[in-house]
């Protein structure tokens, strides 16, 4: 099991130095990043028996053994389990996997054992299938197709370990090819997953596995048309119910379900059902409690893995929530202060997650005067101003939030000026990034026209020379704005 509190060193049997691990991780990260850019980001999970962990250090049997073992199994007899165990180990080898599926009747044999009367053989057979499912060759996934109706059937069974293996096997093979995915959908994988989650809702390991399988299904490119419509009925409420992490078991099931919810909210624009089920309130309140823990520094290992999808859910749900219903949808959950604290807490450790948090703040404040007012009264603005030096889109997003506030009322502009926004703007107006300069001019405009005092304050802080310099900017729109601001407003008042 890959519980988060265990360090897994899976790169072979020898002891790896820290440096080797780091290098390996870095390479892997680069590969994943490129895969995402190619829209090919897919992962598989491998479930290992706890008592077998020492075995990972052994040299795994080679291809020849696969053939031998298969022949022995084929010949019948009562000792099948004795051969199945080494077979599953042998099938960890990628080339052995390919060899196996090319053997005549190999899959037929496995399916037979999977569905036979010997329960232990069933378990070993599914282990073999599980090892096969981990292959990176799509031909292997296709070869497993004969087993899928049975794997799905077993999801409504009661054996938890067995069910877990079925789930991870299904989750591993479904992204591999269109054929496999279509077949699984036709065979009713989604209702099966829903039923499984319901039946085994007290077994969090199974819930985690089901969440993973669903996540894999939701990653397909045409998920919106083919997967999500069936997911709508029933599963979302189950996913939501799993969100609160169990203190003993850990974050893993909640993580899977949260990522499923993120896939749902970010692939589709129709969030009515999720909103109706209180998704915004639930995700929001969980975010508040987790965010508080992050800000305080009391984090479970890997809590960011849960915070990230929750932020995205809240962000996208907010974007389809009409302003009038925002308050009721949030159900009294106050997100403004927790989100601000979260941005500040994350800025140095996980800056891109901080950026996502700022995005959620934007959606929260865009059309809500209440949220904007809260930013002011809770004295959160100075902390946001401190984030304006940071680039890579962080300052642009934070400035957007402040712009949302300024846009609401002239009185807010005056308060923002008192809190130091004008001097922050004289700095952001000098930045090299054109986006932040353009946005700064927009904010400045709102501030200047809000009251003569603000305009005077800007001038007394040396703002005129800043604008005059901007009149020579290479971008015509920027020049136009600076000139307009100078001529029509600042200087008119003199």
């Amino acid at each position, binding site marked *: 099991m890959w519980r988060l509190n265990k*360090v*897994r060193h*899976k790169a072979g049997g020898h002891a790896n130095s820290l440096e080797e*691990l780091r290098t*390996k*991780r870095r390479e*892997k*990260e680069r590969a994943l*990043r490129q895969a995402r850019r190619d829209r090919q*980001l897919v*992962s*598989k*999970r491998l479930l290992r028996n706890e008592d077998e962990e020492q075995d990972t250090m052994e040299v795994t049997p080679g291809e020849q053994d696969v053939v031998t073992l298969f022949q022995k199994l084929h010949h019948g007899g009562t000792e099948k389990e004795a051969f199945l165990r080494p077979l599953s180990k042998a099938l960890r080898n990628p080339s052995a996997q390919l060899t196996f599926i090319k053997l005549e009747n190999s899959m037929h044999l496995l399916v037979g054992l999977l569905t036979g009367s010997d329960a232990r053989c069933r378990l070993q057979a599914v282990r073999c299938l599980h090892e096969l499912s981990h292959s990176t060759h799509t031909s292997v996934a296709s070869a497993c197709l004969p087993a899928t109706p049975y794997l799905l059937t077993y999801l409504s069974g009661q054996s938890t370990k067995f069910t877990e293996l079925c789930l991870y096997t299904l989750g591993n093979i479904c992204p591999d090819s269109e054929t496999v995915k279509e077949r699984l959908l036709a065979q009713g994988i989604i209702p099966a997953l829903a039923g499984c989650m319901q039946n085994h809702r007290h077994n969090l390991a199974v819930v985690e596995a089901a969440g993973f399988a669903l996540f894999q299904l939701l990653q397909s490119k045409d998920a919106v048309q083919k997967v999500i419509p069936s997911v709508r009925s029933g599963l979302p409420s189950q996913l939501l119910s799993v969100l609160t992490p169990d203190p003993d078991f850990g974050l893993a099931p909640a993580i899977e379900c949260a*990522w499923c919810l993120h896939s749902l909210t*970010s*692939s589709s624009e129709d969030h009515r059902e999720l909103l109706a089920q209180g998704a915004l309130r639930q995700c929001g309140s969980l975010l508040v409690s987790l965010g508080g823990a992050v800000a305080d520094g009391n984090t479970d*290992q*890997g809590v960011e*893995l849960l915070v*990230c*999808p929750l932020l995205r859910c809240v*962000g996208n749900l*907010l*974007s*389809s929530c009409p*302003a009038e219903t925002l308050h009721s949808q949030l159900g009294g959950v106050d997100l403004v202060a927790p989100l601000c604290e979260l941005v500040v807490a994350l800025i140095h*450790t996980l800056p*891109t*997650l901080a950026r*996502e948090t700022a*995005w959620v703040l*934007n*959606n929260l*404040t*865009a059309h809500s005067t209440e949220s904007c007012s809260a930013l002011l009264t809770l004295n959160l603005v100075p902390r946001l101003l401190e984030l304006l*030096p940071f*680039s890579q*889109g962080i*300052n642009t997003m934070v400035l957007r939030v402040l*712009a949302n506030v*300024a*846009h609401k*009322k*002239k*009185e807010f502009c005056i308060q923002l000026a008192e809190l130091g926004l004008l001097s922050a703007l004289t700095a*952001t107006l*000098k*930045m*090299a*990034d054109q986006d932040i300069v353009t946005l700064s001019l*927009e*904010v400045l*405009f709102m501030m200047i026209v809000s009251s003569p005092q603000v305009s005077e304050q800007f001038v007394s802080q040396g703002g*005129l020379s800043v604008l*005059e310099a901007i*009149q020579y900017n*290479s971008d015509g729109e920027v020049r136009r704005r600076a*000139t307009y601001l100078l*001529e029509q407003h600042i*200087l008119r008042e003199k």
Partner: protein
Amino acid sequence: MLQPDLLQLMAMGGSQTRNGDEEEGFREAAEQQEEGNPFTFNPQLLRLHRDHELFEDGDVFRHMYLQDLFMSEAEDDISPLPPDLFLSVSEFGCHISGCRAVFSTLDEYEHHYNSLHRHVCCSCRRSLPSARLLDIHIQEWHDSLFTILAQKQDMYLCLVEGCGQKFRTSQQRKDHLIRLHKYPPDFRFDKNRKEKGTREASREQRTNTTMEAADDVCRSEGVCEVMCSVESNQLEQEESMETHASSEEAAQFEDFSASAQTPETNTEQLKPKYSYRFVVPKTVCFGHGSVRGFRGQRGRRK
């Protein structure tokens, strides 16, 4: 940074209902504003599709976890954060079109701007280190009245502030500077006007590209030059950087459409002093006291 093709913007603007007792929001005020208002900001709900680049890092992080490559900070001293991700601070960039300079601190930016872009002579594009020297330069180089008067009276003012002495020729002033004020003979901000002729000729051959950097003409003169085109009449034909509201001023004031970055000069004895000017000579087109800022109001004291 937010790619338009993946970013779905829902600008739910003025159709939003508001509470009755709210003050007039910005929207309503904006709608009453005059034509030609280029500002367009409205709060916007940003919906991010799952493939959006903003989500890239989090997704990579997630998959590192799925593939067992995630390790918490507490263990083995390996940060869960891929080392490529670091927090970066915005650079500051000089606004002047054609000047490509970037700086990591605000102070550097200010120093650059004040040194190179403040006191620039419109006619010949030279950047002088202070307003006073700019005044003197304009008077001595570009003022025909000065030339006439100088034939009969002592017009060349000592460069040292507070001295006040005037001389009949620039050479006499130079001698004075060397003898009395101990200036070096090759003081960079006291070039002879006669030398200008050769440079003018060579500059005329240059094209009017805004991105040219000053070449070694700058160095040989010792005066930091901001290159653009040469003659003032050429300037008026150039693309104006501003839309001129008043045409009479357009004729009078020369536009400064571009400048190029020059290497920082050693200002040596004189530090850039930027005094805020309340008298704006006609030919100054740039810096605080710029025409654009004070069109029609201040600075028409000639």
